[in-house]
């Protein structure tokens, strides 16, 4: 793919109470940030299951941002504390398996931090752009190495014909 034209697809899982409201503030304050990020509003950063991340990668995301309330600010008291431990492990696991740490990023953004939201999104977009498209994972969408490696192409051609991912 031509890197000049290519624009990364980034999925952001943001918590309803802080980051989403922060994003709102960034919008109403007319701050500028790259439009590569698709936001998915969840109730708490603690409610983002790691399979959400995998699913997003499967569906063609190049990078993912998970963002929630600052520690001690969680609407549910401890959701983000639990999330913090969990993401620490998941991040390390993905790194070990060979997915660069930059593909999956985390932040704490409060409702009043519209500026921080714009900055974080710009930074993530810049990082992912530098890393290039996440072909490793996306290639698996059409791969059928299970049976006859040489003939996998026949299948993947058909897939490519009819394939246009959601994102």
């Amino acid at each position, binding site marked *: 793919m031509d890197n000049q034209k290519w624009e990364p697809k980034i999925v952001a899982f943001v918590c309803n109470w802080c980051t989403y409201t922060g994003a709102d503030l960034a919008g109403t304050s007319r701050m500028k940030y790259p439009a590569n990020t698709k936001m998915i509003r969840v109730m708490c950063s603690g409610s983002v*299951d790691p399979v959400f991340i995998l*699913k997003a990668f*499967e569906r063609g995301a190049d990078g993912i941002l998970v963002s929630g309330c600052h520690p001690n600010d969680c609407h549910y008291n401890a959701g983000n504390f639990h999330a913090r431990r969990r993401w*620490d492990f998941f991040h*390390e696991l993905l790194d070990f398996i060979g997915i660069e740490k930059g593909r999956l990023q*985390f*932040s704490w953004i409060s409702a009043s931090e519209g500026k921080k939201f714009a900055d974080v999104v710009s930074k993530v977009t810049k990082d992912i752009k530098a890393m290039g498209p996440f072909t490793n994972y996306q290639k698996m969408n059409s791969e059928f190495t299970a049976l006859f490696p040489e003939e996998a192409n026949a299948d993947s051609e058909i897939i490519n014909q009819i394939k246009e991912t959601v994102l």
Partner: protein
Amino acid sequence: MKELREHAKELLEKGEVSAVIGYSQVSEKRTKPIIVTDPQDTDQLVFNEYCLNNLAVYLTKARIKVSCRTKDKTLKLAVTAKPCDVHSVVALIQENQIHREDIHIISFNCHGVAKDFGFEFSGDNIASKCINCETHKPLYFDKIFGEEKETPKASDDAMERIQEIERMSHQERFEFFKNEFDKCIKCYACRAVCPLCYCQRCITDKTIPRWIESSSHMRGNFAWNIVRAFHLSGRCTGCGECERACPVDIPLSLLNRRMAIKAKKSFSYVSGRSLETPTLVGSFNEKDNDELFM
């Protein structure tokens, strides 16, 4: 061996336990699990270097739990466990799957087991979990047998492999695991033998929405193996049963062990070592490392 059988017999005859979960000899270098309910059958019980199974997996099985319930009281369940299997029992108790007072732990002074059935027990054929084992004596037990012996020396190849992978670039690592996961046939034997995979309904069995594809193509295999490793991170006690059960020899314990190293390094936590501490991923500390977050 004689003491073990007598002890099991006594427990069953006195009616203290409903069953003794133990090992019985199949052939010279192979044992199999056995659930003894009749005192007469206790003479089948054995303990040796070929007792590879982690019997803690049976403790959460509903059918076995039900058999403990009599009209007026709940009987105990006796389980023979190697010191490392006791870690799994402890982890199950920590996670409130079983209660300490319902379990009668019969344990042993252990000096290691063979890496698989049919291999002569020696330094070359010792299970990799035994190489750097620090608990030759169980941490919790109700009855202990066996004499203390020296563990054969061996080099820790699994650890070297982890370090080798860490020296690779991300692209190489990804290719390495891709090749390994490609072999997966989704038999879920790794899940079935794991004492800590006790969920009544596994996430892979959920179909609406289907988070993890049941097809064993690359994408489905990747999702399953990542999620399995993640769900066990900070919980896995390192019994290595998943790797032994795998019919296509995926090095699953590399992932498990890597996450255990992470737990130890970042949180000074080793799974299944203490009944008093809360589980790692089930609890939190406000002072946890915040570096990950922008």
